[in-house]
Protein backbone atom coordinates (compact mmCIF):
# COMPACT_ATOMS: atom_id res chain seq x y z
CA UNK A 1 0.00 0.00 0.00
CA UNK A 2 1.50 3.30 -0.95
CA UNK A 3 0.71 6.35 1.08
CA UNK A 4 0.89 8.64 -1.91
CA UNK A 5 -2.34 10.33 -2.83
CA UNK A 6 -1.82 9.79 -6.47
CA UNK A 7 -4.09 11.88 -8.60
CA UNK A 8 -2.44 11.70 -11.94
CA UNK A 9 -4.78 11.27 -14.83
CA UNK A 10 -7.54 12.57 -12.66
CA UNK A 11 -8.31 15.05 -15.30
CA UNK A 12 -9.30 12.39 -17.72
CA UNK A 13 -11.85 10.86 -15.45
CA UNK A 14 -15.31 11.82 -16.64
CA UNK A 15 -17.76 12.41 -13.88
CA UNK A 16 -20.94 14.33 -13.60
CA UNK A 17 -19.20 16.78 -11.41
CA UNK A 18 -18.12 20.34 -11.95
CA UNK A 19 -15.11 20.00 -14.25
CA UNK A 20 -12.72 21.75 -11.87
CA UNK A 21 -13.80 19.96 -8.74
CA UNK A 22 -11.29 17.18 -9.32
CA UNK A 23 -8.43 19.61 -8.77
CA UNK A 24 -9.78 20.90 -5.51
CA UNK A 25 -9.53 19.86 -1.91
CA UNK A 26 -13.23 19.22 -1.50
CA UNK A 27 -12.90 18.96 2.23
CA UNK A 28 -12.00 22.62 2.31
CA UNK A 29 -15.03 23.89 0.39
CA UNK A 30 -16.83 26.19 0.31
CA UNK A 31 -13.85 28.51 0.01
CA UNK A 32 -13.54 31.67 2.07
CA UNK A 33 -14.02 33.98 -0.88
CA UNK A 34 -16.98 36.34 -0.76
CA UNK A 35 -19.93 35.86 -3.05
CA UNK A 36 -19.00 36.79 -6.59
CA UNK A 37 -15.30 37.24 -5.88
CA UNK A 38 -13.12 36.91 -8.94
CA UNK A 39 -10.70 34.55 -7.26
CA UNK A 40 -12.93 31.56 -7.87
CA UNK A 41 -13.19 32.40 -11.54
CA UNK A 42 -9.43 32.74 -11.76
CA UNK A 43 -9.06 29.24 -10.39
CA UNK A 44 -11.35 27.78 -13.03
CA UNK A 45 -9.63 29.58 -15.84
CA UNK A 46 -6.24 28.57 -14.56
CA UNK A 47 -7.26 24.92 -14.61
CA UNK A 48 -8.53 25.31 -18.12
CA UNK A 49 -5.25 26.88 -19.22
CA UNK A 50 -3.29 24.21 -17.43
CA UNK A 51 -5.23 21.49 -19.18
CA UNK A 52 -4.70 22.98 -22.57
CA UNK A 53 -1.00 23.38 -21.85
CA UNK A 54 -0.96 19.71 -20.96
CA UNK A 55 0.79 20.30 -17.67
CA UNK A 56 1.09 17.19 -15.56
CA UNK A 57 -0.88 18.06 -12.44
CA UNK A 58 1.59 16.04 -10.37
CA UNK A 59 4.42 18.39 -11.25
CA UNK A 60 2.42 21.43 -10.29
CA UNK A 61 3.63 23.44 -7.32
CA UNK A 62 1.61 26.50 -6.42
CA UNK A 63 3.16 29.26 -4.37
CA UNK A 64 1.51 32.34 -2.93
CA UNK A 65 1.96 35.19 -0.52
CA UNK A 66 -0.76 36.60 1.70
CA UNK A 67 -4.09 37.99 0.57
CA UNK A 68 -7.41 36.63 -0.62
CA UNK A 69 -5.93 35.69 -3.98
CA UNK A 70 -3.02 34.06 -2.21
CA UNK A 71 -5.47 31.65 -0.66
CA UNK A 72 -6.09 30.03 -4.06
CA UNK A 73 -3.24 27.47 -3.89
CA UNK A 74 -4.48 26.08 -0.59
CA UNK A 75 -7.64 24.88 -2.29
CA UNK A 76 -5.81 23.03 -5.02
CA UNK A 77 -4.97 19.39 -4.46
CA UNK A 78 -1.31 19.72 -5.31
CA UNK A 79 1.83 20.77 -3.45
CA UNK A 80 1.43 24.34 -2.37
CA UNK A 81 3.42 26.86 -0.42
CA UNK A 82 1.40 29.68 1.14
CA UNK A 83 4.19 31.94 2.29
CA UNK A 84 4.63 35.42 3.72
CA UNK A 85 3.21 38.63 2.36
CA UNK A 86 4.96 39.75 -0.80
CA UNK A 87 7.63 37.09 -0.86
CA UNK A 88 6.08 34.31 -2.90
CA UNK A 89 8.34 34.82 -5.89
CA UNK A 90 11.45 34.31 -3.78
CA UNK A 91 10.18 31.03 -2.38
CA UNK A 92 9.14 29.99 -5.87
CA UNK A 93 12.62 30.80 -7.12
CA UNK A 94 14.20 28.49 -4.57
CA UNK A 95 11.68 25.78 -5.30
CA UNK A 96 12.22 25.96 -9.04
CA UNK A 97 16.00 26.12 -8.93
CA UNK A 98 15.94 23.37 -6.33
CA UNK A 99 13.94 21.14 -8.61
CA UNK A 100 13.67 22.36 -12.21
CA UNK A 101 11.21 19.58 -13.00
CA UNK A 102 8.46 21.27 -11.04
CA UNK A 103 5.95 23.51 -12.76
CA UNK A 104 5.95 26.42 -10.38
CA UNK A 105 3.10 28.90 -10.46
CA UNK A 106 2.70 31.87 -8.16
CA UNK A 107 -0.71 33.26 -7.27
CA UNK A 108 -0.54 36.76 -5.93
CA UNK A 109 -2.57 39.92 -5.51
CA UNK A 110 -1.92 43.50 -6.46
CA UNK A 111 -0.84 44.28 -2.92
CA UNK A 112 1.20 41.15 -2.52
CA UNK A 113 2.93 41.41 -5.87
CA UNK A 114 3.22 45.12 -6.40
CA UNK A 115 3.20 46.77 -3.01
CA UNK A 116 5.27 44.83 -0.49
CA UNK A 117 6.48 42.37 -3.12
CA UNK A 118 7.36 44.79 -5.90
CA UNK A 119 11.07 44.22 -5.64
CA UNK A 120 10.86 40.45 -5.91
CA UNK A 121 8.53 40.89 -8.85
CA UNK A 122 10.92 42.99 -10.88
CA UNK A 123 13.89 40.87 -9.89
CA UNK A 124 12.08 37.69 -10.82
CA UNK A 125 11.39 39.23 -14.20
CA UNK A 126 14.98 40.35 -14.57
CA UNK A 127 16.38 36.93 -13.75
CA UNK A 128 13.78 35.37 -16.03
CA UNK A 129 13.25 32.53 -13.59
CA UNK A 130 11.02 29.98 -15.26
CA UNK A 131 7.87 30.40 -13.21
CA UNK A 132 4.42 31.75 -14.00
CA UNK A 133 3.07 34.55 -11.88
CA UNK A 134 -0.67 35.04 -11.90
CA UNK A 135 -1.52 38.35 -10.35
CA UNK A 136 -5.15 38.78 -9.37
CA UNK A 137 -5.41 42.53 -9.51
CA UNK A 138 -8.56 43.66 -7.76
CA UNK A 139 -7.15 47.15 -7.23
CA UNK A 140 -7.46 46.86 -3.49
CA UNK A 141 -6.36 44.92 -0.42
CA UNK A 142 -9.17 42.45 -0.01
CA UNK A 143 -7.93 40.31 2.84
CA UNK A 144 -7.32 43.18 5.22
CA UNK A 145 -10.57 44.90 4.44
CA UNK A 146 -10.37 47.35 1.60
CA UNK A 147 -7.29 49.54 1.81
CA UNK A 148 -6.02 51.05 -1.42
CA UNK A 149 -3.24 49.34 -3.30
CA UNK A 150 -0.60 50.51 -5.77
CA UNK A 151 -3.02 49.73 -8.57
CA UNK A 152 -6.03 51.52 -7.12
CA UNK A 153 -7.21 53.99 -9.73
CA UNK A 154 -6.79 57.66 -9.00
CA UNK A 155 -9.90 58.90 -7.28
CA UNK A 156 -11.06 55.49 -6.12
CA UNK A 157 -11.94 54.99 -2.48
CA UNK A 158 -10.56 52.63 0.09
CA UNK A 159 -10.52 52.58 3.87
CA UNK A 160 -7.10 54.22 3.85
CA UNK A 161 -8.16 56.65 1.16
CA UNK A 162 -11.38 58.05 2.59
CA UNK A 163 -10.93 61.12 0.44
CA UNK A 164 -9.98 59.20 -2.68
CA UNK A 165 -6.65 57.83 -3.89
CA UNK A 166 -4.37 60.47 -5.35
CA UNK A 167 -1.27 58.58 -6.41
CA UNK A 168 -0.75 57.30 -9.89
CA UNK A 169 -1.32 53.55 -10.03
CA UNK A 170 1.26 51.18 -11.44
CA UNK A 171 0.73 49.74 -14.86
CA UNK A 172 1.85 46.31 -13.74
CA UNK A 173 2.04 44.64 -17.11
CA UNK A 174 4.29 47.41 -18.38
CA UNK A 175 6.43 47.51 -15.28
CA UNK A 176 7.08 43.80 -15.43
CA UNK A 177 7.77 43.99 -19.14
CA UNK A 178 10.41 46.66 -18.61
CA UNK A 179 11.91 44.64 -15.80
CA UNK A 180 12.57 41.79 -18.21
CA UNK A 181 9.76 39.24 -18.17
CA UNK A 182 9.56 37.13 -21.32
CA UNK A 183 5.81 36.63 -21.31
CA UNK A 184 3.38 39.29 -20.10
CA UNK A 185 -0.34 39.69 -20.61
CA UNK A 186 -3.33 41.34 -19.01
CA UNK A 187 -6.95 40.22 -19.09
CA UNK A 188 -9.95 40.47 -16.84
CA UNK A 189 -12.29 37.90 -15.34
CA UNK A 190 -14.70 38.55 -18.20
CA UNK A 191 -12.13 37.28 -20.70
CA UNK A 192 -12.13 33.63 -19.72
CA UNK A 193 -11.13 32.29 -23.10
CA UNK A 194 -8.39 34.73 -23.93
CA UNK A 195 -7.18 34.40 -20.41
CA UNK A 196 -6.99 30.63 -20.40
CA UNK A 197 -5.08 30.76 -23.65
CA UNK A 198 -2.77 33.30 -22.16
CA UNK A 199 -2.23 31.10 -19.14
CA UNK A 200 -1.42 28.23 -21.44
CA UNK A 201 1.25 30.32 -23.15
CA UNK A 202 2.56 31.55 -19.84
CA UNK A 203 2.92 28.02 -18.52
CA UNK A 204 4.70 26.91 -21.65
CA UNK A 205 7.03 29.91 -21.81
CA UNK A 206 10.45 28.82 -20.52
CA UNK A 207 11.04 31.93 -18.50
CA UNK A 208 9.34 34.45 -16.28
CA UNK A 209 5.69 34.77 -17.24
CA UNK A 210 3.36 37.34 -15.79
CA UNK A 211 -0.38 37.22 -16.27
CA UNK A 212 -2.27 40.12 -14.75
CA UNK A 213 -5.94 39.42 -14.20
CA UNK A 214 -8.09 42.39 -13.39
CA UNK A 215 -10.60 40.90 -11.02
CA UNK A 216 -13.55 41.93 -8.93
CA UNK A 217 -13.57 42.43 -5.19
CA UNK A 218 -17.23 43.25 -4.81
CA UNK A 219 -17.00 43.32 -1.03
CA UNK A 220 -14.51 46.12 -0.71
CA UNK A 221 -13.65 47.67 -4.02
CA UNK A 222 -17.20 47.36 -5.27
CA UNK A 223 -18.92 48.67 -2.18
CA UNK A 224 -16.58 51.61 -1.77
CA UNK A 225 -16.77 52.55 -5.42
CA UNK A 226 -20.41 52.35 -6.36
CA UNK A 227 -20.23 48.97 -7.99
CA UNK A 228 -22.53 47.34 -5.52
CA UNK A 229 -22.74 43.84 -6.89
CA UNK A 230 -20.39 41.36 -8.51
CA UNK A 231 -22.45 41.73 -11.65
CA UNK A 232 -21.96 45.50 -11.65
CA UNK A 233 -18.26 44.88 -11.40
CA UNK A 234 -17.93 42.42 -14.22
CA UNK A 235 -20.08 44.60 -16.39
CA UNK A 236 -17.76 47.49 -15.70
CA UNK A 237 -14.86 45.32 -16.84
CA UNK A 238 -16.70 44.50 -20.04
CA UNK A 239 -17.37 48.12 -20.75
CA UNK A 240 -13.93 49.41 -19.97
CA UNK A 241 -11.67 46.87 -21.56
CA UNK A 242 -9.73 47.86 -24.65
CA UNK A 243 -7.48 45.53 -26.54
CA UNK A 244 -3.84 46.52 -26.59
CA UNK A 245 -3.78 46.76 -30.35
CA UNK A 246 -6.78 49.06 -30.43
CA UNK A 247 -5.46 50.96 -27.44
CA UNK A 248 -2.25 51.71 -29.30
CA UNK A 249 -4.33 53.83 -31.63
CA UNK A 250 -6.23 55.64 -28.89
CA UNK A 251 -5.16 58.95 -27.41
CA UNK A 252 -4.56 59.59 -23.73
CA UNK A 253 -7.99 60.96 -23.10
CA UNK A 254 -9.73 58.00 -24.64
CA UNK A 255 -7.57 55.73 -22.52
CA UNK A 256 -8.63 57.22 -19.19
CA UNK A 257 -10.38 54.53 -17.18
CA UNK A 258 -9.64 51.88 -19.77
CA UNK A 259 -8.27 48.45 -18.93
CA UNK A 260 -5.87 47.70 -21.73
CA UNK A 261 -5.98 43.95 -22.23
CA UNK A 262 -3.91 41.66 -24.39
CA UNK A 263 -0.43 40.32 -24.73
CA UNK A 264 2.36 42.73 -23.79
CA UNK A 265 5.46 40.61 -24.24
CA UNK A 266 6.18 37.24 -25.74
CA UNK A 267 9.84 36.67 -26.42
CA UNK A 268 12.63 34.52 -25.14
CA UNK A 269 15.88 34.70 -23.27
CA UNK A 270 17.86 32.16 -21.30
CA UNK A 271 16.19 31.58 -17.99
CA UNK A 272 17.71 31.38 -14.53
CA UNK A 273 17.40 27.66 -13.84
CA UNK A 274 19.09 26.92 -17.12
CA UNK A 275 21.92 29.29 -16.30
CA UNK A 276 22.43 27.62 -12.95
CA UNK A 277 22.34 24.17 -14.45
CA UNK A 278 24.73 25.12 -17.22
CA UNK A 279 27.22 26.39 -14.68
CA UNK A 280 27.05 23.11 -12.80
CA UNK A 281 27.59 21.17 -16.00
CA UNK A 282 30.54 23.39 -16.90
CA UNK A 283 32.13 23.13 -13.49
CA UNK A 284 31.58 19.51 -12.59
CA UNK A 285 30.13 17.93 -15.71
CA UNK A 286 27.00 17.12 -13.78
CA UNK A 287 23.45 18.28 -13.82
CA UNK A 288 22.14 19.80 -10.59
CA UNK A 289 22.25 17.42 -7.65
CA UNK A 290 18.65 17.25 -6.59
CA UNK A 291 17.20 16.14 -3.25
CA UNK A 292 20.50 16.23 -1.41
CA UNK A 293 18.58 16.28 1.87
CA UNK A 294 17.65 12.64 1.42
CA UNK A 295 21.19 11.45 0.75
CA UNK A 296 23.99 10.64 3.10
CA UNK A 297 26.70 10.09 0.55
CA UNK A 298 27.77 12.64 -2.00
CA UNK A 299 29.89 12.00 -5.04
CA UNK A 300 33.15 13.69 -4.01
Amino acid at each position, binding site marked *: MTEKNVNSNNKNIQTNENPFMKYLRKDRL*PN*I*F*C*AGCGNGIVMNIFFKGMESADIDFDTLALVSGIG*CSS*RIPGYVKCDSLHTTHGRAITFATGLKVGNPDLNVVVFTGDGDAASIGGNHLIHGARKNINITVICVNNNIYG*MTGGQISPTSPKGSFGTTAPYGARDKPFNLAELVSTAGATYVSRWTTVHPLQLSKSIKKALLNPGFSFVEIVSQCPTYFGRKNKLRTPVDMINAFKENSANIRKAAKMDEEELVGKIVVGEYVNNSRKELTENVRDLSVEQCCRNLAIKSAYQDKFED
Partner: protein
Amino acid sequence: MRTELRIAGFGGQGVILAGIIVGKAASLFDGINTVQTQSYGPETRGGASKTEVVLCDDEIHYPKVISPDILVAMSHEALIAYISDMKDGGTLIIDPDMINESEIADFVKKHNIKLHRAKVTKTAENEIGLRIVANIVMIGAISKITQVISHDATKEAILDSVPPGTEKKNIQAFEAGYAMDGN
Protein backbone atom coordinates in the same frame (compact mmCIF):
# COMPACT_ATOMS: atom_id res chain seq x y z
CA MET B 1 -25.29 43.80 38.13
CA ARG B 2 -23.41 42.30 35.21
CA THR B 3 -25.45 41.43 32.16
CA GLU B 4 -23.94 39.38 29.36
CA LEU B 5 -25.47 39.70 25.91
CA ARG B 6 -24.52 37.85 22.77
CA ILE B 7 -25.90 38.54 19.28
CA ALA B 8 -25.14 36.00 16.58
CA GLY B 9 -26.10 35.33 13.01
CA PHE B 10 -24.41 34.97 9.68
CA GLY B 11 -22.09 37.42 8.00
CA GLY B 12 -23.91 40.21 6.23
CA GLN B 13 -26.77 40.44 8.70
CA GLY B 14 -25.22 43.39 10.48
CA VAL B 15 -24.85 41.55 13.73
CA ILE B 16 -21.73 43.45 14.69
CA LEU B 17 -23.25 46.85 14.09
CA ALA B 18 -26.11 45.76 16.31
CA GLY B 19 -23.65 45.03 19.10
CA ILE B 20 -21.99 48.37 18.67
CA ILE B 21 -25.27 50.21 18.80
CA VAL B 22 -26.32 48.38 21.93
CA GLY B 23 -22.96 49.21 23.48
CA LYS B 24 -23.16 52.83 22.49
CA ALA B 25 -26.68 53.20 23.76
CA ALA B 26 -25.76 51.75 27.11
CA SER B 27 -22.45 53.49 27.62
CA LEU B 28 -22.87 56.89 26.04
CA PHE B 29 -26.57 57.50 26.51
CA ASP B 30 -27.68 55.34 29.42
CA GLY B 31 -24.44 55.81 31.31
CA ILE B 32 -23.87 52.15 32.08
CA ASN B 33 -20.41 50.59 31.83
CA THR B 34 -20.21 48.61 28.66
CA VAL B 35 -17.72 46.53 26.75
CA GLN B 36 -18.39 45.32 23.25
CA THR B 37 -16.29 42.65 21.53
CA GLN B 38 -16.65 40.58 18.39
CA SER B 39 -15.00 37.90 16.30
CA TYR B 40 -13.00 38.95 13.31
CA GLY B 41 -11.38 37.84 10.19
CA PRO B 42 -11.80 35.97 6.95
CA GLU B 43 -13.16 33.00 8.80
CA THR B 44 -16.18 35.08 9.67
CA ARG B 45 -16.86 35.87 6.01
CA GLY B 46 -20.07 34.20 5.06
CA GLY B 47 -19.77 32.02 8.12
CA ALA B 48 -21.04 32.64 11.59
CA SER B 49 -20.73 36.13 13.00
CA LYS B 50 -21.11 37.17 16.58
CA THR B 51 -20.76 40.09 18.91
CA GLU B 52 -20.82 40.29 22.66
CA VAL B 53 -21.81 43.10 24.97
CA VAL B 54 -21.20 43.11 28.68
CA LEU B 55 -23.10 45.72 30.71
CA CYS B 56 -22.54 46.49 34.35
CA ASP B 57 -23.05 49.25 36.88
CA ASP B 58 -19.63 48.53 38.32
CA GLU B 59 -16.36 48.54 36.47
CA ILE B 60 -16.12 45.69 33.99
CA HIS B 61 -12.94 43.72 34.25
CA TYR B 62 -13.26 40.46 32.38
CA PRO B 63 -14.67 41.72 29.08
CA LYS B 64 -15.97 38.60 27.44
CA VAL B 65 -19.21 36.75 27.80
CA ILE B 66 -18.84 33.53 29.72
CA SER B 67 -22.47 32.57 29.88
CA PRO B 68 -24.98 34.87 28.21
CA ASP B 69 -27.92 36.23 30.14
CA ILE B 70 -29.32 37.22 26.79
CA LEU B 71 -28.76 35.43 23.50
CA VAL B 72 -30.03 36.92 20.27
CA ALA B 73 -29.93 34.47 17.37
CA MET B 74 -30.52 35.62 13.83
CA SER B 75 -29.66 32.33 12.14
CA HIS B 76 -30.18 28.73 12.93
CA GLU B 77 -26.49 27.88 12.75
CA ALA B 78 -25.70 30.61 15.24
CA LEU B 79 -28.44 29.50 17.57
CA ILE B 80 -27.18 25.94 17.64
CA ALA B 81 -23.60 27.07 18.07
CA TYR B 82 -24.26 29.23 21.10
CA ILE B 83 -27.38 28.16 22.89
CA SER B 84 -25.67 25.67 25.14
CA ASP B 85 -23.61 28.44 26.77
CA MET B 86 -26.72 30.20 28.06
CA LYS B 87 -27.45 30.85 31.69
CA ASP B 88 -30.36 28.97 33.14
CA GLY B 89 -33.35 31.22 33.07
CA GLY B 90 -31.76 33.47 30.48
CA THR B 91 -33.49 35.35 27.73
CA LEU B 92 -33.38 34.05 24.17
CA ILE B 93 -34.53 36.18 21.26
CA ILE B 94 -34.81 34.54 17.87
CA ASP B 95 -36.00 35.45 14.44
CA PRO B 96 -38.43 32.56 14.01
CA ASP B 97 -38.24 32.73 10.21
CA MET B 98 -34.58 31.92 10.27
CA ILE B 99 -34.81 29.16 12.79
CA ASN B 100 -36.05 25.66 13.27
CA GLU B 101 -37.45 25.95 16.77
CA SER B 102 -38.11 22.30 17.30
CA GLU B 103 -34.39 21.60 17.69
CA ILE B 104 -34.13 23.77 20.77
CA ALA B 105 -37.45 23.11 22.42
CA ASP B 106 -36.01 20.64 24.89
CA PHE B 107 -33.17 22.89 25.86
CA VAL B 108 -35.43 25.88 26.38
CA LYS B 109 -37.64 23.90 28.64
CA LYS B 110 -34.91 22.19 30.59
CA HIS B 111 -32.99 25.38 31.26
CA ASN B 112 -35.96 27.56 31.87
CA ILE B 113 -35.09 29.86 29.00
CA LYS B 114 -37.39 32.80 28.36
CA LEU B 115 -37.92 32.48 24.63
CA HIS B 116 -38.95 35.50 22.59
CA ARG B 117 -39.68 35.57 18.89
CA ALA B 118 -39.00 38.67 16.83
CA LYS B 119 -39.77 38.37 13.14
CA VAL B 120 -37.17 40.93 12.28
CA THR B 121 -36.25 39.80 8.79
CA LYS B 122 -39.81 39.71 7.60
CA THR B 123 -40.54 42.98 9.31
CA ALA B 124 -37.57 44.60 7.66
CA GLU B 125 -38.57 43.28 4.27
CA ASN B 126 -42.22 43.98 4.51
CA GLU B 127 -42.55 47.02 6.71
CA ILE B 128 -39.38 48.90 5.83
CA GLY B 129 -38.77 47.38 2.44
CA LEU B 130 -35.10 46.79 3.22
CA ARG B 131 -33.94 43.39 4.33
CA ILE B 132 -30.64 44.82 5.51
CA VAL B 133 -32.21 46.73 8.38
CA ALA B 134 -33.27 43.52 10.09
CA ASN B 135 -30.47 44.13 12.60
CA ILE B 136 -31.94 47.51 13.55
CA VAL B 137 -35.36 45.98 13.94
CA MET B 138 -33.74 43.46 16.23
CA ILE B 139 -32.19 46.24 18.30
CA GLY B 140 -35.69 47.59 18.82
CA ALA B 141 -36.80 44.18 19.96
CA ILE B 142 -33.82 43.83 22.29
CA SER B 143 -34.51 47.20 23.86
CA LYS B 144 -38.14 46.43 24.35
CA ILE B 145 -37.79 42.86 25.54
CA THR B 146 -34.72 43.04 27.74
CA GLN B 147 -34.79 46.66 28.91
CA VAL B 148 -31.00 46.60 29.16
CA ILE B 149 -30.98 49.69 26.99
CA SER B 150 -33.60 52.40 27.08
CA HIS B 151 -35.73 53.38 24.13
CA ASP B 152 -34.32 56.88 23.88
CA ALA B 153 -30.71 55.95 24.38
CA THR B 154 -31.02 53.35 21.68
CA LYS B 155 -32.53 55.84 19.28
CA GLU B 156 -29.66 58.23 19.92
CA ALA B 157 -27.15 55.47 19.44
CA ILE B 158 -28.69 54.51 16.12
CA LEU B 159 -28.63 58.08 14.89
CA ASP B 160 -25.00 58.28 15.95
CA SER B 161 -24.07 55.10 14.09
CA VAL B 162 -25.81 54.90 10.74
CA PRO B 163 -24.70 56.62 7.54
CA PRO B 164 -26.10 60.09 6.95
CA GLY B 165 -29.24 59.95 4.87
CA THR B 166 -30.36 56.62 6.25
CA GLU B 167 -31.51 57.88 9.62
CA LYS B 168 -35.20 57.83 8.84
CA LYS B 169 -35.41 54.28 7.59
CA ASN B 170 -33.32 53.09 10.49
CA ILE B 171 -35.39 54.78 13.14
CA GLN B 172 -38.47 53.39 11.45
CA ALA B 173 -36.90 49.93 11.65
CA PHE B 174 -36.01 50.45 15.29
CA GLU B 175 -39.49 51.53 16.18
CA ALA B 176 -40.93 48.58 14.31
CA GLY B 177 -38.79 46.30 16.44
CA TYR B 178 -39.65 48.17 19.60
CA ALA B 179 -43.30 47.75 18.76
CA MET B 180 -43.07 43.96 18.70
CA ASP B 181 -44.58 42.07 21.50
CA GLY B 182 -41.81 39.53 21.51
CA ASN B 183 -43.83 36.40 21.78
